[in-house]
């Protein structure tokens, strides 16, 4: 039986990927961030997941305003890094897990989540930077990936509550898959940041630390944060944190925090990382 064993929450700032790609991780600006990633990498190397369901958002790479899916689940066999304007990142292609992904799609739709099923999409920094953060620079990513792309650009994104419920439905779906698989769920994006407007550069460390605490202390309450609160308190792009609620919902109620890291700034974002394990 497949089983979700753990969850990872992490920011997916493009500059973090660029620091990896251009060998800058030991520079004074980046070193405090990357040294905090070490323990998470060790944890992952020991956890040895077979599959990661990576909840991320596309940033005008695969999807445009022509078609804006709220939840798009990637069922393809492979996903190539996207060209975001400076050529694709030179990272390995992402290998999918079509069989589990189709099982998820069928199960989630019958469970009344209105998924968009996607066979072909390039994946941008939203998905590949978390892989770089957790895996460094391997020849091939060490596990299969099921991309779950959430709209957080066009207002309104799905509510935090809906994301949390989706996580629970994902957990049920994974557990009804007969093959033995160790599955980890990544929630990505955030934490507090605002890229746009006169208020660009907003960071709210208090909000972020409360959010990290709340993931184990009271996730039900966290799931009730309305969009306007995210936008006001965590910045217009801080609303990406709803994607962490999918990850949280996919874990058991009593999941434990095994590691966290928080650093400001990564480019103009507060970079957070948390690892949660099912008991």
């Amino acid at each position: 039986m497949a089983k979700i064993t753990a969850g990872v929450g992490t920011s997916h700032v493009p500059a973090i990927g660029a620091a990896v790609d251009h060998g800058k991780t030991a520079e004074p600006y980046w070193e405090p961030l990357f040294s905090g990633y070490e323990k998470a990498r060790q944890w992952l190397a020991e956890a040895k997941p077979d599959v990661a369901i990576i909840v991320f958002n596309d940033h005008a790479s695969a999807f445009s305003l022509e078609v804006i899916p709220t939840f798009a689940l990637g069922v393809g066999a492979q996903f190539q890094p996207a060209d975001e304007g400076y050529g694709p990142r030179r990272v390995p292609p992402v290998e999918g897990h079509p069989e589990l992904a189709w099982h998820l799609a069928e199960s989630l739709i019958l469970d009344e989540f209105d998924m968009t099923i996607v066979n072909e999409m390039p994946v941008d920094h939203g998905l590949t930077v978390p892989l770089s953060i957790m895996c460094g620079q391997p020849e091939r990513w060490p596990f299969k990936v099921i991309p779950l792309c959430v709209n957080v650009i066009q207002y309104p994104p799905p509510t935090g509550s809906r994301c949390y419920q989706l996580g629970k439905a994902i957990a049920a779906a994974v557990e009804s898959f007969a093959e033995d698989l160790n599955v980890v769920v990544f929630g990505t994006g955030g934490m507090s940041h605002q890229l746009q407007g006169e208020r660009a550069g907003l960071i709210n460390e208090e909000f972020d630390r409360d959010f990290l605490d709340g993931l184990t202390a009271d996730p039900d309450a966290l799931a009730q944060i309305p969009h306007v609160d995210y936008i006001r308190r965590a910045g217009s792009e801080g609303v990406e944190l709803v994607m962490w609620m999918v990850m949280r919902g996919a874990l058991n109620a009593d999941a434990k925090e095994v590691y966290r890291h928080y650093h400001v700034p990564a480019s103009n974002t507060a970079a957070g990382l948390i690892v949660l394990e099912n008991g």
Partner: protein
Amino acid sequence: MSGKDEAPEYGDIPGTYVFDGRHSRRGYHLNMFCMSLNRQENREVFRADEAAYLKRYPLTSAQRQAVLERDWLGMLRLGGNIYYTFKLAIFDGLSMQNVGGQMSGITEAEFKNMMIAGGRPYKEDQQVSAAGGCADG
């Protein structure tokens, strides 16, 4: 004209352009232009003659001007979304801090230093700009 009878609940957040339906409709072609720069062949054509390339998209003259002048705040006010307009910044080789500085009226160095010092502080009553918010441009 509008079918909505109330201001959105996020309307009072200063210096913030929430990309809602109204905003998205206004900026549709502007954003689609920006997205087209994901493709190397389009970048080359745009680099060769910006104004000519822009004719492919039915932009308003204000939008066209904002693009040509790299008026980052103007683009947002005319329906741009930062993830789309940032494609143009990538094209120019600009960092997010550079554009963040331009939008908030400080230099790139000042913006970087603000971030290193912990970012722009959040205060309940902050009022970064009277010109911001979600009002029509």
